[in-house]
């Protein structure tokens, strides 16, 4: 059988697609489980890392790792403590709202630098969709009162005047976002492991013979 070099990539893409289909529940469906959220976050962490790596190289910002600062914007710092359950993910919603807006800003800026259909625009659009997907899940989990008519979304941060500054800021946001998603994914994974361990311990404990 002939082996196509692109096959592994295609398989990964298909797998991710199926994962998203499972992780993002349809409109009006049942609320997502913690596992679904966890799977989506894990996938988004990988995607955010890929987007950052591509952006950094594509924009010529890999020199001296200009974007990789350790001072993310406050809204991208994430929860200090490990979320204990679905309820604890409530704080993530605000972050995702801001992130969706930031991605739109970055995309708008990149449209001035790239021809329509450029790879960076495609990737930004894809990540934006995933952020919107996670937001939808969180909206199902934590319904909020519908916004009043005429109310605008929070304004995006003041646009820096210079192109390079904007590129750099976009890059820093993507770096912080990838760090946040990686951290979140890791925390959820660890929590899941602990939960499994506790369940197993509990089952073993219940099976132990009682001493009379």
């Amino acid at each position: 059988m002939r082996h196509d070099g692109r096959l592994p990539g295609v398989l990964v893409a298909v797998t991710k697609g199926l994962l998203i289909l499972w992780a993002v529940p349809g409109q009006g469906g049942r609320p997502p489980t913690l596992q679904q959220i966890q799977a989506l976050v894990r996938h988004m962490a990988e995607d955010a890392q890929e987007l950052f790596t591509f952006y950094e190289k594509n924009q010529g910002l890999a020199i001296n790792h200009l974007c990789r600062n350790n001072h993310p914007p406050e809204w991208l710092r994430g929860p200090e403590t490990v979320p204990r359950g679905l309820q604890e993910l409530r704080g993530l919603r605000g972050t995702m709202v801001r992130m969706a807006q930031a991605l739109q800003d970055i995309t708008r800026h990149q449209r001035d630098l790239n021809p329509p259909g450029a790879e960076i625009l495609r990737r930004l659009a894809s990540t934006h969709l995933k952020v919107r997907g996670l937001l939808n899940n969180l909206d199902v989990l934590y319904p909020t009162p519908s916004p009043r008519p005429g109310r605008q979304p929070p304004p995006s941060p003041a646009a820096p005047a210079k192109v390079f500054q904007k590129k750099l800021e976009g890059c820093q946001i993507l770096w912080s976002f990838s760090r946040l998603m990686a951290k979140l994914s890791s925390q959820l994974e660890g929590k899941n492991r602990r939960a499994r361990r506790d369940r197993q311990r509990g089952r073993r404990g219940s099976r132990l013979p009682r001493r009379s």
Partner: protein
Amino acid sequence: MMNLFTVLVVLLTLRTCSNTYPQQESIVFPVTYLNVSKDLALQQLLVEWDVGKAAHDAELAMSFEIQVHRTGVKTTVWTEFHNVTLDKSGKPLNWIWDSDFPLECMSHSVRIRSKADASKIWSQWSRWETVLGLDTSNNSGPQIFPNEKFVEEGSDINLCCIGRKGQTIKGFFLDPAIHAFNHTNSQVGLLTVKNVPHQEVSYITVYCEESCKEKQCYGHAGFFLGKPPDTPNDFSCQTQDMRIVTCTWSQGGDTYLYGRHSPNYTLFEEFSQKPVPCTASCSEQCSCSWDIGQQRICNITVTVENPLGKKTATDVFNVTHRIYPVAPFQLWEECTDTEITLYWKYQNIGIKLFCQTEVLHPDGNVEVHNSSAMDPQYVTLGGLQPYTEYTARVHCGAAKHFWRWSEWSEARTIRTKEATPSGKLDIWREITPVLGGRNVTLFWKETPNFQGNGKIISYEVTWEKVEDDSKPESISFTSVYNSTRISIDDHSYRISIMAKNNVNYSLPSILIIPRATGTKEELSGSELKEEQVTGTDDGIFISWEPRYIYDSYIVDWCNFPMLQPCDLQWKRFGPNTSSALIYSAAFAPGVRYNFRIYGSVADKASLLEKKTGYLKELPPLLDPVVENIELTSNAVTLYWDSYPTNESQPGFVRGYHVYVSPLQEDCSLKGSEKHVLPDNSVLCKYTIENPEEKRYTVKHLLSNTKYQLVVKAFTGGGETPIVNFRYIDTPFNSNILYLLVLLVTVPSLVAAICRWKMKWVQECCCPVIPSPSKSKVLSFKGFKIGSERVLKISSSNPDILAVDSKAEAQKSHPWSQLSSTPQEEKIDGHDSSWTYPKENKEREFTSTYAPQTPICFENFAYSSHLAVESNPYQISETLETSKPELPVVLYQPHHYFNICNEDAASTPQETTGRKASLRYISRTAVHCIGRRL
């Protein structure tokens, strides 16, 4: 008052100067005021200066030399002469200099000197007036200039990086990397890129790095790289309804500037001096539409602009001259069998339109019909074929001030109505005699002249006797048939065939079947000789002898001669035709086609000639099978009687080739041609040019030899390669065997008989001879006869007794020498009486042999085995050829008497025999003198 006085002084001075030439040349008006400022947005130095008021008042024409100096550059970067005529307003003078380097990068100084045109002397230079570069004292990091500039591909750009105080520039480069001239001194870095090439990205990042490591030691900037927009091409405006005007233009090449920097199009109406309220949209072409209201004359300018440039295009037009009508719609038609009237509608915009109809014919031809100017909403298309599909479409344009055609209407396919079939069917027949009559197979087809003019629904076949008025018989076939078979008797018949459509019948096609004479040959034409014809790439060429009584000729043939039915085909030719190239898509190479040529007069056809041929002859598929072989020791006769030469062959068999070769070597038989095989082995080739001659005898073969042979038939297409041979072994030649048997058997038999009858033979031929010692005659001593002394015979037996006629002969007789020669050799194991004279001695003997007449006697008692040979010379020769075996085989008898006469001894055979053979001459053979068996 004071000013007036000054003016008077100046005028007086000039007046004086004009009168005294040397004084004029020395008048100067130095720069009294100089101010330099910078416009960083435009990167310009703004220079303002002035000369004395007197110069203004005098309205002098003056020249100013302006020099620009850049800090850190040793030479003056710019020198320019500025000519101006001063006026009395006294306003300071201005000059603007566009800097090619960012003004922030370094300080720039300007100085000026002046000269009145009437004077030859320049004033002193003014002092340098300096504008400083960027003040970097408060900078948080290195600064790069220019930043965010738009640079046109192929132009030059100069960049600089200014480090902070106390810092040196360590790195200053571009990403993506572009070849640049880099010059850095301690605090300022300069980067010059000449002829900036196109890059994958539109934004080029510039990095500058001081020698420290902290975050603030890095500076970043960038510039956009692209092209100015192209001038809008093919800019024109038109309207479909005289209200909405649409202007279109082509977009031009890529500017490589995107988003907000991509080309922006704006339209402006010059007469109304208003921007056109439309938004351009571009895909393949750009277009913009808006409502012009009642305006009829427009002057539209389209402007395309991006940060690198601006281009415009203009179109001035009268709206009524730019009518591009809406495509006609709602087409419908009325038609007859030869005419279509097509109607349509179009949008009424208050001006007259003119329309065109395009008609697509079934053969692919396209006709264009113009509609009437009076009524452009229909057109009549005439001269059409009945029951034929035509496709029509319409477009319109302004009848007056034509601008362009509208889009085509939807195409409409229309079929004309049916009409009576025109022309006649082409019909033919094949007649087969049967018991009591004939079977006639009738064929019909549509000729190019025949037009069905509708859907043919049936064919009507009618036949009737010619001679009497019997009722015609008739039969009808649906349109799927193109042949039928009818049975008729031997009378003459008249057959007619007609095609019928929904309207009517076609004219009948007539065929007369003549009265049968009863002979089979009449129908088959077997008495006619069949001629062979040759094919070409374009078909099979047939010719016939023209006979001027016929009004047409018909050639018929079968497309598939080996099948039944064979798909009979026919072709008609005019009376003046006597040859034709017959081609059919069914013709295949290697198939024999039989053609019959008929002459037709008054619908009655007669067979004239028969032809047969191939489109292309191929080599025979099968080789002749040699069924019988007659073999002798030196010839072989091959038979292949059953090999067919008929139509089953893929070509006319022209003859045969017989190939022969010995198995192990090349062939060179007498009377053959040489044929070299691909492996370079050589065969003998015999050609038989009569295909009916199916036997051949190959002669001159060697006996007892293995041969390979093959028989190949050849046609006009050649012959197939030799693949298989047949092998034969020629037998041993029995005559030689018989000879050998004779040579061995007969002497053996004789020898056996002799041995058996030895005693008798001895008695008969060589009786016991009494001992001479006992003879009284020979027992004397010193016996003399005349002068001759008679030999005294000892007790030993004499070997030879010679009686010579001459006394001299006795002296030189070889035998005496032979007996006494010391060169005699004796062979061990043999009787001591054997002598072997050496060959040289024999030559001596021969040469010295005197021509005398000795008498020789042979005692055949000692050579019995040779007695069978009547010719003693022959024996001698035989002996000579088998010299080494002489003593063993042929001289078994131990005694040989040869008493030769002179004649015999002188013959060559004798001489030869003497050379080779040994003779033992016995002195006891006296009594045998003159006797010979």
